[in-house]
């Protein structure tokens, strides 16, 4: 089963690269704000018209405070 060493090596290498990326992302503050990115991605420039259903009015959007 010598091939298992190849697979474990390849998988571990990729895992290590991602672990390094994770540590770097945390240290550089990528995850300090875990609320606003989810809201900011909703805003495009220019705002795209919603062709299927109308955008909810600001009042409607504010109905659930935890959304904001």
């Amino acid at each position, binding site marked *: *089963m010598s*091939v*298992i060493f*190849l697979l474990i090596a*390849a998988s571990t290498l990729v895992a290590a690269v991602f672990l390094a990326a*994770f540590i770097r992302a945390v240290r550089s503050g990528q995850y300090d704000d875990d609320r606003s990115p989810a809201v900011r991605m909703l805003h495009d420039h220019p705002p795209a018209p919603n062709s299927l*259903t109308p955008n909810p009015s600001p009042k409607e959007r504010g109905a*659930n405070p935890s959304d904001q």
Partner: protein
Amino acid sequence: MIERFQYDNRIVKNFLFVTIMWGVVGMLVGLTAAIQLVVPSWNFADWGSFGRLRPLHTNAVIFAFVGNAIFAGAYYSLQRLLKARMYSDMLGKIHFWGWQLIIVSAVITLPLGMTTGKEYAELEWPIDIAITLIWVVFGINMMGTIIKRRERHLYVAIWFYIATWVTVAMLHIVNSIELPISMTKSYSWYAGVQDALVQWWYGHNAVAFFLTTPFLGLMYYFLPKAANRPVYSYKLSIIHFWSLIFLYIWAGPHHLLYSALPEWAQSLGTVFSIMLIAPSWGGMLNGLLTLRGAWDRVREDPVLKFFVVAVTCYGMATLEGPLLSLKSINAIAHFTDWIIAHVHIGGIGWNGFMIFGMVYWLVPRMYGTKLHSVKLANAHFWLGTLGIILYAVPLYFAGFFQSLMWKQFTPDGFLMYPNFLGHTAGDQDGLRTARYRR
């Protein structure tokens, strides 16, 4: 000074167009292969026989239908999330035409019987090299865009795209190491059970990193967009991503239970498969809960309907998968039609319905039009949903019966039902044989 720039929408439109086109082709080939199982006379020639059309079906739906949809969604969302045009329009064009050329070469070589014989990696070595090159082109284009971005934070969807790119590159290269003996034939570098282990390390992770992670990226972008509300928990989406990618890669051996693979490797595959339930269901719930308070809109918007069924199917398939990796359940299901039902819950339910929702959302935005008929989209939704149920449920039953029949023996030790199909397609000869032998 205000900086002005435009997004590259041409590339998104192109990929959307071929997604729909190859979707139709891939599903028609699948339908033909399914009919061939019941009506053998539909095996009309060597090149049109089940053995050749089945890999054409899987390659077409996975790499052409789903693949092009990934690229369409990624090119659209990357630019908007990074607030930057793609790194290079030229690389985008090379990526697009290169990928279509690869698909066309698959459509030609697979029916001609040119195959490596490795499931989901059937394409021969010259095409393997082309796939590698085009994948690198896509990677440069994506990484270049990430580097020149105007938005500091990398939204979770982009992490899913990055993981997709890196892991698929590794899987494809390691699994495709082969010795060419001519332009159209090569042999795998690995042999026997070692080849099987590499193959299913690839096969399982192709499902993970071609059919799952890119689609989770698409889900985290298009579902909040279509619902016009932020994802239920951004924190959970980050945990979802990092836990999923660190667990997924080790689950491959569950495809080789009861094989010559060492027992410990089989068990390890099972353990990781069970652990995968946690991030998978975390992601499913995160997607569904994004719609809380918006269910009134789900009732009206076909895009959201497609997404709800897609995310639900993701949850079902990712619970079923770990259960199937348990040896006792695998003993019933392996090699039966149950597996066909399982992969289609994932393939049509999760991938297909995500694509349909995404296309219905994107096309009106890309062309500045309204959907031709929302009614028709709703009809599409209901036909598709009922179709999946009618497809999967009978196959679950069939798989169970198939498995039970295979385990019946005559007193002399022969199989009591040697030809399962003989008993399903109304073949009375088959039934008579069985009674006679009993």
